[in-house]
């Protein structure tokens, strides 16, 4: 990534979208909209002082909504370019309220609330489409209860939980436990405020609230207006503190997730959604189970799948290593349902096809290996580029020219063309680069050949 930012031959247009494409191979006229960041790219040093001071907290999309960021943000810490961006949907100033704290904090004077979108015209010989994919939305499978059970997560969410730069700093804290901890924090703030109110009364009357309240309940001080207020405030305080104490006691028992279930083919190899095999999910489930085991040696993982497709260099060995050294059990069977169990533990109902029995098992967390779905933006992009999509809305290619689209001079690589893993994406990317280079270097000769 750093090399891209530094390379003299790369003109990086981040936070930009394709508006219009005209022309033909060798001579495409492309209009690119550079969206307003409200931060000057040539001035911002990426120091991050602005986001420290920004008062508006927003769910962090990079962490799949599990962490928090500010209204002025960098997409992620090591992001290239490091230029910060203001989210106009959340920024107080851009929403017409009074703020501008970031502009006051920025020593480089980079914040510019008046910035507008800019339109750039490019002339290029060839285009490479590397638009990627979207994660399948598992809430479309109601029996897996992804949107109801906090501890049922997608593989990419789990990836963020495992990451040292993620919302938990790499600790496998369960989402339900994190929610309770967040609630405790909020209640503690509230309790602190009400404690201050009560302390004032205690000082005024020289008596502890608990003693006063017991005599108040016996019927004393009924006519004293101030003491009535005190009693009311103390009652409110108790209503905060009592559930808070219970929650705190519960939170003491929280540990990292230790019993993990991985469910394969969520949305893929499923005729209701995508009949194809996404190809990489078996491997990322094994990888996540191995990494989770590295985080906590007592972690056990069960991978539920129709079969484990470990096709690739070193993949089968990786799978066996996971089974032998990382407490992974492979169960052949498709999961029918995930139910709510005690202590927010999901219960997996499945058929063990080897034993021909329907079984159920309780886990700390369930991770869904979601399908590789075509990216939502591909329809509009394909329309602008004038390229065809296939039956599943990936870019149409043919087996003997896997990076050529239906339009000459436009190539595709990575998951925009079909589901594939990182090594394959990289190989295809180099292939697409070579096809595009043919036009850059021998474009004129190609044209003559085409005419002849």
């Amino acid at each position, binding site marked *: 990534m750093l090399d891209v930012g530094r390379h003299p031959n790369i003109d990086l247009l*981040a936070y930009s979208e394709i508006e219009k494409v005209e022309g033909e191979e060798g001579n495409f006229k492309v209009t690119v909209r550079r969206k307003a960041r409200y931060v000057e790219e040539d001035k911002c040093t990426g120091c991050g002082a602005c986001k420290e001071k920004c008062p508006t907290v927003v769910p962090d999309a990079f962490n799949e909504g599990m962490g928090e960021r500010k209204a002025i943000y960098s997409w992620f810490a090591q992001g290239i370019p490091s230029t910060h961006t203001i989210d106009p949907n959340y920024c107080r100033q851009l929403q017409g309220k009074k703020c501008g704290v970031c502009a006051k904090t920025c020593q480089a004077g980079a914040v510019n609330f008046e910035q507008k979108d800019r339109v750039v015209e*490019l002339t290029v010989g060839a285009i490479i489409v590397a638009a990627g994919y979207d994660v399948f939305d598992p809430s479309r499978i109601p029996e897996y209860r992804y949107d109801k059970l906090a501890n049922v997560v997608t593989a990419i969410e789990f990836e963020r939980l495992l990451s040292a730069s*993620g919302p938990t700093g790499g600790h496998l804290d369960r989402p339900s436990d994190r929610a309770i901890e967040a609630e405790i924090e909020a209640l503690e703030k509230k309790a602190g405020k009400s404690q201050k109110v009560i302390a004032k009364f205690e000082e005024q009357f020289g008596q502890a609230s608990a003693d006063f309240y017991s005599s108040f309940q016996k019927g004393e001080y009924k006519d004293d207006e101030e003491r009535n207020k005190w009693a009311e405030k103390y009652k409110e305080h108790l209503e905060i503190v009592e559930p808070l104490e219970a929650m705190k006691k519960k939170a003491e028992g929280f540990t990292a997730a230790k019993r993990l279930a991985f469910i394969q083919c969520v949305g893929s190899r499923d005729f209701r959604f995508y009949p194809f095999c996404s190809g990489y999910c078996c491997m990322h489930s094994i990888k996540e189970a191995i990494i989770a085991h590295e985080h906590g040696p007592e972690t056990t993982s069960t991978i539920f799948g129709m079969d484990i497709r470990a096709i690739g260099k070193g993949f089968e060995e990786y799978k066996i290593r996971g089974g032998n050294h990382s407490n992974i059990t492979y169960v052949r069977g498709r999961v029918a349902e995930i139910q709510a169990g005690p202590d927010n533990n999901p219960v997996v109902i499945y058929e063990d096809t080897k034993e021909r029995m329907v079984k159920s098992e309780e886990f700390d967390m369930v991770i869904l290996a979601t399908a590789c779905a075509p990216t939502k933006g591909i329809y509009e992009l394909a329309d602008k580029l004038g390229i065809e999509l296939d039956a599943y809305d990936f870019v149409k290619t043919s087996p003997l020219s896997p990076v050529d689209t239906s339009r000459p001079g436009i190539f595709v690589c990575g998951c925009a063309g079909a589901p594939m893993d990182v090594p394959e994406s990289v190989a295809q990317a180099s292939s697409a680069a070579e096809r595009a280079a043919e036009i850059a*270097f021998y474009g004129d000769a190609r044209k003559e050949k085409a005419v002849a």
Partner: protein
Amino acid sequence: MSKDILVIGGGIAGIQSSLDLADMGVKVHLVEKLPSIGGKMAQLDKTFPTNDCAI
């Protein structure tokens, strides 16, 4: 006849294509819709089968 190349998408595939072309001496315009490049791979903790860091 333009010798520049446009790459749409700054994930691992777009990054690899851009670098390959740029190293060949071709001018590349890399368009990414999000504020930073990196794509899905930047969200990953590690990659299989070597458990190398993804970033």
